[in-house]
């Protein structure tokens, strides 16, 4: 008789968890955080966060407002440097290089780690200039033709080119919200980043524009490491391969997205994703 003991069931459970952990092991680690804490003045906003972000995949950060997910996101390209009284401890490395190293050029770091914000924020310039600006100041193009090439390629990658090709010299602010957000993604892509941080990129968009951004994220992950902060659990479930749940400044649980949304291990994660506390 093939008896199922409690212990063999427990083993099966562990096996599933381990499998989920190595589910996307084909990609190497791009960003590593070790014991990262963030303080705003005296107030600690983030507590000892340790996480590996795999390369060429989408990692989503979820959690209630004020849980620290955006704070952590902004550590990855040192956006927190711009906030007075903000202090970051612990180690964050990009390709094994400490990004808080005093010798490191922050401008270069932010070219490698691009960012897209909640509200589309195109420059008050033409569509073309919005995308050309980054490559120009970083000296990525040696000729006008090359710059044009970069702009067109970036707009194509952001799935926007077909919609704007006849009006590249019109102001970027004249586009629809969804188009503006894709313009901002094109602008981020134009400087050939390796990592793209997205802070609630769809929260100001309608469902169709959201679907287009999600489709775009799915395409971009072939070449970029993407971290997305989102309040939409369904969006996290749809677009990401791994999910991290933050609560009260702590990283509660990280795992394969399929696992987090079907069978999370931590009760706080379960309560949050099933809408039991906010």
């Amino acid at each position, binding site marked *: *008789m*093939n008896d199922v003991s409690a212990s063999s069931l427990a083993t*099966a459970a562990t096996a599933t968890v381990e499998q989920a952990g190595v589910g996307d092991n084909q990609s190497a680690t791009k960003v590593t955080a070790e014991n990262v804490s963030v303080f705003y003045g005296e107030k600690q906003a983030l507590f000892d966060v340790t996480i590996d972000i795999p390369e060429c995949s989408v990692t989503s950060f979820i959690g209630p407002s004020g849980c620290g997910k955006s704070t952590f996101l902004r550590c990855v390209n040192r956006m927190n440097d711009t906030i007075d009284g903000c202090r970051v401890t612990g180690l964050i490395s990009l390709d094994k290089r400490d990004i808080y190293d005093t010798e490191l050029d922050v401008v270069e770091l932010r070219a490698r780690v691009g960012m897209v914000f909640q509200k589309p924020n195109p420059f008050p310039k033409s569509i073309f200039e919005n995308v050309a600006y980054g490559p120009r100041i970083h000296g990525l193009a040696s000729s006008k033709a090359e710059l044009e090439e970069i702009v067109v390629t970036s707009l194509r990658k952001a799935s926007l080119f077909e919609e704007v090709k006849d009006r590249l010299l019109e102001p970027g602010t004249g586009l629809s919200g969804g188009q503006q957000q894709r313009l901002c993604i094109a602008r981020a892509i134009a400087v050939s980043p390796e990592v793209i941080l997205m802070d609630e990129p769809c929260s100001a968009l309608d469902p169709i524009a959201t679907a287009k951004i999600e489709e775009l994220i799915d395409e971009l992950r072939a070449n970029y490491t993407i971290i997305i902060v989102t309040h939409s659990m369904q969006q996290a479930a749809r677009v990401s391969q791994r999910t991290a749940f933050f609560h009260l400044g702590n990283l509660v649980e990280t795992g394969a997205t399929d696992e987090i949304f*079907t069978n999370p291990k931590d009760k706080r994660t379960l309560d949050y994703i099933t*809408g039991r506390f*906010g």
Partner: protein
Amino acid sequence: MSDHIVTSFDEDLKELAQRISEIGGLAERAVDRSVRALVSVDAAVARKVIEDDDRIDELQREIEEKAILTIARRQPMAQDLREIMAAIHVANDLERVGDLAKNIAKRVIAIGGQFQPQQFVHGVEHLAELALEQLKNVLDSYVGRDLDQALAVWRRDNEIDVLYTSLFRELLTYMMEDPRNISFCTHLLFCAKNIERIGDHATNIAEIVHYLITGIALTDERPKQDTSSLTSVEYKDA
């Protein structure tokens, strides 16, 4: 488990659970009555089982609709999603149990007035007792979210299988002894097969309960003891 922030979501889930209880009760009653109708060859009771099956079918459709609506409206995650999927599957299994009981009832009507040695029915009656107990226990395990009880049901199905195989031999033997038994025994054999399948549905539900509670599918091969498909009884000339 604590309540949802949106209380109407809790109500949706509660309503599903209530309908599962209802369909479970009806399925149990159908099996019980169909077997009693068989034992006492009572066509009136049998007809009642057939009539009542409509309500089981209707409930199954209602549960499915309610579940689909809840998924569309709430976009449930994790345990909530398993809860809803479990309701759909359990209702499905119970609807099949209802059909099997109905089939037994139809046979009761068909065999009315035939030559019926009552001692032949004892084995089937005993088999039905076992299956009913399994059904009752597994529904209790569903309501009480009792993993151990579900696993106990899951492991115990082989008892029904073993009994069914021996009943199969017994009925074949009666048929060989006297060809007048063939019609009645064949019907009994189908009834026994129906009951054995009801046991299978009980173990299906046990697997669903396991998944519902743990989030892990029971993949181990269940002990199978129904060897009737490989069983034959040799005819000996007297």
